[in-house]
């Protein structure tokens, strides 16, 4: 009976461990990037999307140790109860003692495995991939071709194959084009209602973060769809130019290219060491709808408890920790959730 119980305990543990692992690793979403669907309890090594898998395996190891700890804890309690109820029955009490000893030995063995590896080399318990330099995406560093003059005597004519940049009409987009980064106003009433709620929530959060001894910086709030579309158009033209540099020599392209160069100098996209990568504009994203805000917090350890702190203080913000955008906060209860078209 005891053996049966032990076997079923083990089987249960393996099933739980196996299923959690499969649900974690197998949960590849429709995104190009595989995203881990949940974080692990020990926040000191919680793994977010885009991190190396080693850290995840490491966190899972500690998670499995947690399960072992809880099982050992439960079995010692079971031993105690068994000892109580088998009073006057020496074999029953001996059995209870064996249970307790087995639990202690079990946890010692499991923890001993960690200890042994740690003694040999602490790096063994910190799984990590060798660090490789990242490869720039899109246009290589150095930016756009600078010359619009072709080889001597060869100046291609014809229409310019590059798409013209859109003209900005939205006041928010024009403000951002003129150098403003944090915009709290929109001409769209639904977006404006969201932004008003968002500003109140961010102010509350500012007080809360200061109370925790931290500091926060608002990087970006409302990004009009037009502005994103402009960035995307610059990115697409820059990518096209990288693939067919000869286009830069077409006479009809010269005004567009000087326009692109001006934009590039102004915003610094696709220059220096920055990878040239701009997301396609979507009216259903958080920023154009006025319900998303990018906030960076120092010390970064505050991120791990930020969601529980926010809900404890009834602040309607949630840290979304999106892949590639780890500073993104979302308004929990926006006034308007409709996608915007301009």
């Amino acid at each position, binding site marked *: 009976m005891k053996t049966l119980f032990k076997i079923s305990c083990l089987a249960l543990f393996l099933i739980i461990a196996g299923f959690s692992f499969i649900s974690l690793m197998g949960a590849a979403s429709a995104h190009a990037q595989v995203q881990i669907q949940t974080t692990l309890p020990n926040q000191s090594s919680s793994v977010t999307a885009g991190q190396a898998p080693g850290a995840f395996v490491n966190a899972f190891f500690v998670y499995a140790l947690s399960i072992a700890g809880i099982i050992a804890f439960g079995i010692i309690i079971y031993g105690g109860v068994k000892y*109580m109820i088998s009073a006057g029955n020496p074999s029953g009490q001996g059995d209870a003692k064996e249970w307790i000893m087995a639990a202690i030995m079990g946890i010692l063995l499991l923890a001993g495995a960690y200890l042994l590896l740690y003694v040999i080399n602490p790096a063994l318990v910190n799984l990590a991939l060798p660090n490789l330099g990242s490869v720039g995406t899109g246009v290589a560093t150095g930016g756009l071709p600078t010359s619009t003059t072709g080889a001597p005597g060869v100046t291609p004519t014809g229409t310019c194959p590059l798409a013209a940049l859109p003209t900005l009409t939205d006041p928010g987009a024009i403000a951002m084009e003129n150098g403003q980064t944090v915009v709290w106003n929109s001409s769209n009433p639904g977006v404006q209602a969201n932004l008003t709620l968002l500003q109140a929530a961010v102010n509350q959060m500012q007080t809360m973060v200061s109370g925790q001894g931290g500091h926060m910086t608002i990087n970006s709030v409302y990004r009009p769809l037009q502005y994103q579309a402009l960035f995307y158009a610059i990115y697409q033209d820059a990518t096209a130019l990288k693939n067919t540099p000869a286009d830069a020599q077409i006479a009809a392209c010269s005004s567009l290219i000087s326009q692109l160069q001006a934009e590039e100098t102004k915003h610094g996209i696709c220059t220096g060491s920055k990878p040239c990568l701009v997301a396609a504009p979507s009216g259903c994203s958080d920023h154009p709808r006025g319900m998303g805000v990018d906030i960076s917090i120092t010390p970064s350890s505050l991120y791990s408890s930020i969601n529980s702190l926010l809900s404890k203080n009834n602040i309607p913000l949630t840290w979304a920790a999106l892949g590639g955008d780890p500073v993104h906060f979302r308004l929990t209860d926006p006034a308007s959730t409709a996608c915007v078209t301009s």
Partner: protein
Amino acid sequence: MSHFINNLRRNAIVRFSLLFVVAGIFFAPLAASAAVTAPQIWPTGYWGTNPYLLSCSGNYPIGGANQGSTQDSYGRPYCSSLTDLLQTAVNIVYFIMTIALFVLAPILFVIGGIMMMLAAGSPEKISKANKTMIAAVVGVVIVLCAYLIVNTIVTTLNITGVAGFGGS
């Protein structure tokens, strides 16, 4: 054969204890932060908090509906995260601990007392009643030690982040 195993077991315990003393001296304390917390059982016992033994503190997974938020548009919490799995297990163990300490042990102690009253001077029955009462007290001590044992092992080895054990 069993004698040999017993001997080995005893030696192993001595060795492990020494190992832990050494380990405790060598490892500098690291900050542990576990999202799973141990419920308070003293003085009233752990009878579960809303929604009782099941823990629902997780966020909806990234990439799905209601991603990143703690509840959906109907206000339903998310109870399927791995943190919740551990927290629920911890809650159940603490609930069993509460039953053992606050229900089983007092009842067994009272039963021992009644047995002693009904013994009517019979030495055999008195010793049986005595054993029942002693076992109840020893059982309580073991149950109370359960957390201590596991916690000591985890903290001495400095395994950070083991849910509900080892540091704050």
